[in-house]
């Protein structure tokens, strides 16, 4: 129940960020301000991705799921928006570098597939590009277990990026456990923000 709630909280923001328009799950969730992902996510409410990916996914999925499917990625040539400059362009999806997780889970929420795929394709397009996937946990539970959990989160992201063509040598994973929170609070919203993988590029 906790998981579905936090998932719903995050969905609206991601949907709007992806400019995907209305969606049934979006309508279910009235309180968009309850979202845990707030100011330091940049406040960007629009972004684009290689059009093939976004629009095909939208039309092929009525449930709002973004699990990889053939339609979503069937146009490997359409990577016009996947540029290094996009990494620091707030209007580009690539400027989003954080993936959030459910409590005590390392699995990727479906809504993050597009974001991860975008970065994976960028890495595939620029083989010299190197990144670190820095995994983090919230403060609950024991510290070394959280190191392990957070490393598994970063490896989950790496695995998907590998499927999308990023090379293993381009990606380093690390688990910081609960040692480096981005917010200090001891409540659900803070915990959600701290359960994350940050994508960090060398030099970008």
């Amino acid at each position, binding site marked *: 129940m906790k998981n579905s709630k936090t998932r719903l909280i995050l969905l609206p923001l991601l949907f709007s960020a992806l400019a995907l328009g209305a969606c049934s799950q979006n309508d279910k969730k009235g309180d968009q301000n309850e979202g845990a992902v707030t100011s330091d996510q940049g406040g960007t409410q629009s972004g684009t991705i290689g059009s093939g990916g976004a629009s095909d996914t939208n039309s092929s999925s009525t449930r709002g799921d973004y699990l990889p499917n053939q339609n979503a990625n069937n146009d490997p040539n359409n990577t016009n928006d996947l540029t290094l400059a996009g990494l620091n362009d707030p209007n580009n999806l690539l400027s989003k570098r954080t993936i959030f997780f459910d409590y005590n889970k390392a699995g990727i929420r479906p809504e993050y597939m597009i974001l991860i795929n975008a970065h994976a394709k960028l890495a595939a397009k620029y083989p010299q590009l190197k990144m670190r996937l820095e995994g983090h946990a919230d403060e609950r539970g024991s510290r070394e277990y959280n*190191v392990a959990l957070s490393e598994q989160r970063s490896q989950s992201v790496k695995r998907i990026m590998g499927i999308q063509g990023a090379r293993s040598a381009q990606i380093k994973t690390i688990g910081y456990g609960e040692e480096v929170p981005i917010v200090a609070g001891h409540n659900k919203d803070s915990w959600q923000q701290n359960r994350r993988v940050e994508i960090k590029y060398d030099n970008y």
Partner: protein
Amino acid sequence: MKNSLLVLFSTVFMFLVTSVQAELELHISKTTDDGIPIYIANISAGIPGGHNGIIEADLKRSGRFTIINRSKIPNIASYGETLNTGAYQDIADYIVRGKDNGNGGLFIELVSTSDNAKTNYTITANENPRRPAHKAADLIYEKITRRKGAFDTRLAYVTVTNSTTKNRTFRLYISDSDGHNPHSILTSRRPIMSPAWSPDGSELAYVSFERNTSAIYVQNIFTGAKRLISAREGINGAPAWSPDGSYLAMSLSIDGNPEIYTINAKSGALKRITKSSAIDTEPAWNGIGSIIFTSNRGGKPQLYRTSANGGGVQRLTFDGKYNSAADIANKKIAFVTGNRGAFHIAIRSVSGSGKDMLSNGRLDESPTLAPNGAMVAYTTLRNGQNTLAVVSDNGKARQFLTSPAGDVREPAWSPYLHK
């Protein structure tokens, strides 16, 4: 008040330490008034609070003694003078008198008021002027309870300031077991975690991210000399010394996911102990032949036991959805147990079942047992900050050690000191 716990919230004693290091503040949460009644006479000394103050505080936090207020026996005969113990039989079971020997050492006399039996101790000076009093408390404790005292020991712990900013600073500290004499042995802008004492009390193993990836080091606490033990690909975490100091157990993910390994402390030879597709971490030695660790191989984190050579894995905890972070001393095991979203510290015997709850915070973690198994230090949340807590194994005495500067956490209780 009878048979109840005396709650003394907000009784704060500032530690007067000459060092400029971050000092901890002691907050006594509760003491027991149904413990063994003991009277500690003034013991002259040039240290704040006096040697008697140190002995009293030690015995109090064991949860086994009730300190008799000094006003109950005014004008007690000084050390060396005749003591009419029969007159005090209804007030205290034991009376402690003493004096310093002029060189920082102590003469201590313990008298049983029921039979007038006297025990005398001579305690030599130490460069740490508080240690003779801790040694006296250990001797008194052992004589009366027939269990070894563990007051003359140390704590290692980690502090963090500015934890959510770029200026975040991690420090590894060592202090006396009561939080006095803190001094930092390592400072880093990157996380420091999981301090673990060598069995001779001279070295600390810990995890540091100073290379921007996790690594395990061993540092001599006296010389500061530091050596790298493991900086393998992936996780290098949760170091734990074998009781004979020959091996360090740790969690490494070099083979793909976190598993328990042992490394020979001299040769560096690595041996994999667990094999599962799940998380295996937080090893704790149960004697030299077996290791207790945390694994989520059953779906949720639980404690398991394995032979220290690998194999023979048995699940130890079945109660609750989260049991982890075992620490073992004197055949007792302290661990984190999660229940309905809260995390508490529990204790049980290694061979037994069930558990006794020792804490009631919301996010308690990192339990560490005193070497006699009679007290547990852990991390708790107090006023929004990570704080150390020390609780007696009977749950009757608890105190907090807080830092005005920031978070204090991950205590590691030293073994008995040998010098």
